[in-house]
């Protein structure tokens, strides 16, 4: 892609993305007292991550089956509070194994 057309895209994209992050961080200065708002902010990250994961995770790999195996491994390890890295690496390894089995045994 030519840089003459790429650079305006890059600039607009970076500005919008930065603005949505920076403006609230800089403008909200007081400690929020409102119970509803505080509770809302407490729950929000877990809701965001859940929405982004389900159902998208089931189409993130080569097949629904391997994704389901990866999710199962991740759920079990996360339930026992293993580190983010161990959970991610184990889930990837499980997906790889599962796809190798699917590829060569069926």
């Amino acid at each position, binding site marked *: *892609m030519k840089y003459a057309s*790429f650079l305006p*895209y*890059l600039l*607009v*994209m*970076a500005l*919008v*993305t*930065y603005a*949505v*992050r*920076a403006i*609230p*961080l*800089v403008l*909200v*200065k007081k*400690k929020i007292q409102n119970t*509803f708002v*505080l*509770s*809302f*902010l*407490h*729950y*929000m*990250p*877990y*809701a*965001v*991550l*859940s*929405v*982004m*994961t*389900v*159902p998208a*995770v089931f189409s*993130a790999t*080569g097949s629904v089956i391997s*994704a389901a195996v*990866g999710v199962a*491994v*991740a*759920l079990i390890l*996360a339930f026992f509070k*293993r*580190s*983010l*890295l161990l959970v*991610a*690496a184990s*889930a*990837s*390894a499980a*997906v*790889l194994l599962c*796809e190798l089995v699917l*590829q060569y045994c069926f």
Partner: protein
Amino acid sequence: MSSKSAFLKGIKAGLPICFGYLSVAFAFGIFALSSGLDSLQALLISMTNVTSAGQLAAVPIMVGGGTLFELAASQFVINLRYSLMSVSLSQKFDKSFRLIDKLLVAFVVTDEVFAVAASQKGEVGKHFMYGLILTPYVGWSAGTILGAVAGNVLPAIVISALGIAIYAMFIAIVVPVAREDKKTLICVVIAIALSLAFHFVPLLNRVPGGFVVIICAVAASALAAWLFPIKSEKEDTVA
């Protein structure tokens, strides 16, 4: 805690995110090149945006000759959740943060950085945050260039397996909290139910992905906040 040990604590907390990002950015690098960008362009996008979903949506608009407004609107909608996270973080940062610190840290407010910062007990200081965002930023940039340069060498099956890494990380963040706290678990279940509805129910499934994340997350969090308000900030180490 000294500033150095706080910084190192941040680095340690950020490393798993860094490795997760390496794999996700790697996939983005491959995607960008196959779409018609060059490696430098892929790297520039990653270094100036640091947003997986936003970048994935932006590339087709760029190479397809979409308008600047379309690009701006898509990024605004997909990344609006960062605004919510920034509001939440503004409550979490301690007094060591000056304006310049906030402006710098704001650059790398991502889902994972936010989740790790939010799960710390009590307030967080600027040295911890600088440590926390450093390696994810490096990982995101390095992963992009590695994917752009070496992506065609890796077998497809390995790339496919890496596709689950970021989601596994999300699971590792949510499940331990939902296991301990029934209210968060209910919120998560509501969010997942809404997300599935927007994926499978006719008409609802035509809503663009960026909007779905906002609608479902806001609805589930608002419902949970209404049903199970958290009384005091001191009792709650996450808010």
